[in-house]
């Protein structure tokens, strides 16, 4: 994570939630970011998994500071393959790899969220890619504000503001989920000639 980007968000929040402590801000920001990534699949990671003959179970490589939310898909030599995931990071291929198959790796796509270890360590850097802080700034801001304003018996409690920011958070999250599904490409055609799957 770029701490400068996080600091911009934290500075904004501190001015909008008077009386809040940094520990509380970090906790709620973490919760919002975790919810955001788990609902939107916006943080995706693709990695090669080298195959071994007759081995069906593999461990998915996970970037530091992240946890796998769900698998987005897997392909082998350009073709989708069937598999099942066993959380947190095991993948089971439905077909046993034979000798010709192990010449190519499986390309595994997963969606990620922030690892809770970071909260336990109280580290400043959650290792979220910098582009996320730029792209999702407004959504995370609204998400945190909604959570704070909806708390009971706090100096910043404000039910009207909570409703407003929660709606904005939900709307922005929905938009980002659609963007992520389209690979962050604007106005993708909804349908392609069905070489493999048909609908994009």
């Amino acid at each position, binding site marked *: 994570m770029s701490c400068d980007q996080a600091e911009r968000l934290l500075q904004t929040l501190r001015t909008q939630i*008077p*009386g*809040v*402590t940094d*520990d*509380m801000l970090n*906790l709620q920001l973490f919760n919002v970011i975790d919810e955001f990534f788990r609902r939107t699949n916006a943080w995706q990671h693709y990695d090669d998994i080298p195959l071994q003959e007759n081995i069906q179970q593999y461990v998915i490589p996970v970037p530091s500071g992240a946890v796998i939310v769900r698998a987005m898909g897997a392909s082998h030599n350009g073709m989708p393959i069937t598999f099942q995931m066993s959380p947190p990071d095991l993948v089971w291929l439905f077909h046993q790899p034979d000798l010709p198959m192990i010449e190519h790796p499986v390309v595994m796509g997963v969606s990620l969220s922030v690892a809770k270890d970071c909260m336990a360590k109280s580290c400043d850097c959650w290792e979220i890619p910098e582009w996320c802080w730029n792209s999702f700034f407004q959504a995370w801001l609204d998400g945190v504000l909604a959570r704070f304003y909806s708390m009971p*018996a*706090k*100096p*910043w409690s404000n039910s009207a503001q909570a409703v407003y920011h929660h709606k904005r958070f939900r709307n922005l999250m929905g938009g980002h989920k659609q963007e992520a599904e389209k690979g962050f490409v604007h106005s993708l055609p909804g349908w392609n000639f069905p070489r493999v799957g048909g609908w994009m």
Partner: protein
Amino acid sequence: MTALETVGQYLKEARVLLQDVTPPYRYEDVELVDCLNIGLLEARRLRADLFLPLNKGIFIDTNGTLDRAAKVPIDEMYRPALVYYIVGRAQLRDDEATTDQRSAAFMTKFTSQLLVINS
């Protein structure tokens, strides 16, 4: 030095408001630290978020020699509120030098500073 960081700084500030700065004191150090500990309990009840992570101890040890350099575990924004609690709590004691109204005012000030922005 940061204001109101250690037990000694809290005691000094509380004694100013209690008008008890010259020995022999009307309020012993240990008595005031007991008030401080009860204030931390009250703050923990009203604002658990001030004591994150919640699995750590918050009390000042009053057994044996009092450690005046011990840090009081509360965010700096809420340190004045704790002083008001110490003073209000101490003045709850039946004492000709204090009044119930003054004590109640300090206790109310403590609560409102924790729960209301414009307090």
